[in-house]
């Protein structure tokens, strides 16, 4: 049972799951980093992305288009939210409360639109099967997920390090006052960042949907996961999102494998431990 093959297999499952969590948390971290807002509705964006993506993919019979549009349309939702709700709210906490209301609203809208049956995005044939690694079959789609996650991480890193907007984002993460001082349109920046964050959440949702069927209630579960990852990784740091995601992904996988009786408490145990050692998360400043 503990042969190398199954261990590797487990590890890879954990990492791929961690990648989903990373995609999810990255958007969350971006939003917080620049706008100092906790987007409680992040799970709802995840859910919405999956629903929209699946519907579009089924209409157009085009897998990639579905994924693309799923993400983009959630980005648009984010844009609208930021533009018409947050702009009018001076306090960060008020914005948090609004995102909280959005959870309730999106939950019912999507229930009204898609009912309460679970939906699965059916992958094209060449991604459907599984390959054998050390005599253990491993789903191809998860490998794709792994690649996409790593690419996204790389992309975000390049964006942050190399582009001007990226440097602003990083600056925002470090010190938003300074951003204001060096004369950057913080409003525009916020809109961009929130849209991007929402888009990432939607992307996570649609990418995950072949493995994780979407149905009502998943928004709360996902929000919980996102929060745990972010708190563990440290608020406002993309590195934190990646490390936190992988850590929770692996902990979840191996925890279930080694001591299944712990069940749902497990990731919260991890969380508690991290917090006792480092109250501000692994990469959290201060």
């Amino acid at each position, binding site marked *: 049972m503990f042969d190398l093959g199954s261990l590797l297999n487990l590890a890879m499952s954990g990492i791929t799951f961690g990648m989903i969590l990373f995609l999810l948390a990255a958007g969350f971290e971006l939003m917080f980093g620049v706008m100092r807002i906790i987007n409680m509705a992040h799970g709802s964006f995840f859910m919405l992305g999956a629903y929209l993506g699946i519907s579009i993919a089924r209409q157009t019979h085009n897998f990639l288009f579905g994924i693309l549009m799923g993400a983009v349309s959630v980005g648009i939702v984010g844009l609208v939210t930021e533009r018409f709700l947050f702009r009018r709210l001076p306090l960060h906490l008020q914005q948090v409360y*609004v995102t*909280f209301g959005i959870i309730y609203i999106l939950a019912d809208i999507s229930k009204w639109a898609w009912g309460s049956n679970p939906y699965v995005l059916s992958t094209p044939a060449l991604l459907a099967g599984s390959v054998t690694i050390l005599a253990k079959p491993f789903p191809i789609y998860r490998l794709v997920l792994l690649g996409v996650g790593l690419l996204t991480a790389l992309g975000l890193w390049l964006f942050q390090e190399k582009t001007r907007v990226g440097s602003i984002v990083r600056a925002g993460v470090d010190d938003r006052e300074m951003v204001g001082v060096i004369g950057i349109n913080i409003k525009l920046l916020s809109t961009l960042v929130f849209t991007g964050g929402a888009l990432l959440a939607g992307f996570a949702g649609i990418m995950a949907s072949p493995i994780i069927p979407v149905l009502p209630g998943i928004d709360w579960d996902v929000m919980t996961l996102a929060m745990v990852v972010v708190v563990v990784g440290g*608020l406002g740091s993309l590195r934190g999102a990646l490390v936190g995601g992988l850590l929770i992904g692996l902990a979840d996988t191996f925890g279930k494998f080694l001591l299944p009786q712990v069940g749902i408490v497990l990731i919260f145990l991890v969380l508690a431990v991290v917090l006792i050692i480092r109250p501000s998360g692994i990469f959290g400043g201060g």
Partner: protein
Amino acid sequence: MERIGYGKHWPVVAIPIVLLLVFPQVASFYSVILLTEVLIYAIFATSLNLELGYTGLPSLGHAAFFGVGGYTLGILIAKGGIHNFWLCVIAAVLASAVVSSLLGFFSIRTSGAFFLMLTFALAQFVWGIAWSWRSLTGGDDGISGVSRPTPGLTISIMNEVNFYYLVLLFFAGTLFLLYRICRSPFGHVLQGIRESETRMQALGYDTWKYKYVAFIVAGTFAGLAGALKACQDGFVSPAYPSVVTSGMVLLMCLVGGTRIFLGPTLGAAVVWVVRSIVSSYTEYWSFVLGCILIIAVMFAPQGIAGYLVQVRGLLKRARAKS
């Protein structure tokens, strides 16, 4: 601000109390049950507001203590076979005090959004325990058969009206105590911390200590609310400490108004009645709640109570003119 909800507004207190006393005599049986629930949630929300409105600590994990209170009472009655009402309630309150002092120790270090997430995560932990510790909590089946013990004086509280009066008693007591706390020096220190923690430190206050005590007090009263709810339902389930409950009570505070003492009570009434009524007509009740929250946050940062106070101010002004 300071003045709002304070001062000598005795009618604000007296009239509702009279109404609450006569209510069961005139109203329908079900509305009594509904109002009992509202009162319990009012205790719950007001306790949260000690953190949220007065100390400025937005907690999304307050249901944890509600749950601890409920489960303690439920376990004592259904499994422990203890049928002394007061004993069970006191035990429940103490248990939630202990748990809140434990969770507070970790969460108080942070503030603002960080605090929100941390309380949320810690509450999820409590929920997870309630769900997985089957032998004690019965998992998601919860604990049934929590029969209401008699509070003495040979008064049976199985009768919903009597139970209503008992809850009303607790409600009045809780609000009185919390009101005194809010007006006391301690309460003002909390408000000071809400306004500017660095300033309070510069004045020589050990703010951590004050916040911690506030957190424990709030948790304790939340536990009382949970115990009463368990009594009413005759049942406890993991829904008690769930994030949905935390969200609901946060919603109540925000809708009612966090800077006004009676705001959360008002919010509890509005939210719970809306939820009960709307959910009888459509399964899309949470949509309505969501809209109410957003509208409240955007157009009434002081909540419904805030609006009422303003309207009163306007009336005063109108009278002054004429």
